[in-house]
């Protein structure tokens, strides 16, 4: 794959990161914020895999990508459990409504 360089993949990861950041910044819906975080983690993983591929012969990048996927799974489970708990208490998942941390 001669014409594709590392920069192609880095720019793709950058654009995905920016979209994820926009999603996190602009949403008040807690599940929407979690979706933005998933996009950001995916963009970081694209960078890891691209560096592993163009680094040649080493697999550390792929190992770290798997660790990131594992942490993303744990984060999604805990995050969505918290969101559902907030929804049961407040009947809304607007992050502005849950500022008090009291049930």
């Amino acid at each position, binding site marked *: 794959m001669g014409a594709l360089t590392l920069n192609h993949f880095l*720019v793709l990861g950058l654009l995905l990161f920016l979209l994820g950041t926009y999603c996190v910044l602009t949403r008040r*819906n807690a*599940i929407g914020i979690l979706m933005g975080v998933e996009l950001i983690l995916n963009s970081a993983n694209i960078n890891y895999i691209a560096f592993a591929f163009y680094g040649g012969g080493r697999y550390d990048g792929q190992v770290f990508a798997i660790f990131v996927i594992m942490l993303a*799974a744990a984060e999604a489970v805990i995050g969505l459990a918290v969101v559902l708990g907030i929804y049961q208490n407040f009947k809304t998942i607007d992050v502005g409504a849950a500022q008090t941390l009291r049930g």
Partner: protein
Amino acid sequence: MLAEVIFYLLAALTLGSAMIVAFSRNIIHSAFSLLGAFMGVVGIYLLLAADFVAMVQLLIYVGGILVLTIFAVMLTAGIADVTISNRAVGRVPALVTIGIVGIVMLFAVYRTPWHHAEKIAVDPTTYAIGNAFLTEYVLPFEVASLVLLTALIGAIVISRHEAKE
């Protein structure tokens, strides 16, 4: 040439879906277009000869996290209301922020002399990754299992109902 065409198709799929995730006012549309973004990233991993990571992404992101997210969206009734999905920071400050961050990072990407290996390996990666997990990365691997167990117990504790006495 073929690899370039495939890359641009996958990038268009990923970024197009991610734009729907970020810009759609309806949270259900966002949740479902997350599928396109994750599948595009799977394709990118396959293009970068990371077969095992691509399958892990398919199983955990598409099969786990995405289904969980869609369930959470559907369990919180009335979520499709635009008033609930409204914006925290205004559109303009957010765009300015990501514009500045994007320019700085684009600068970093193009100005850094990245190391390119001459020979690029495209072997199956599962064997090497398994070896790395059980030799060099055995401590993080064990800690990861502990983190997952903690997350499992934590999610059960948070989401269970209190027994009424």
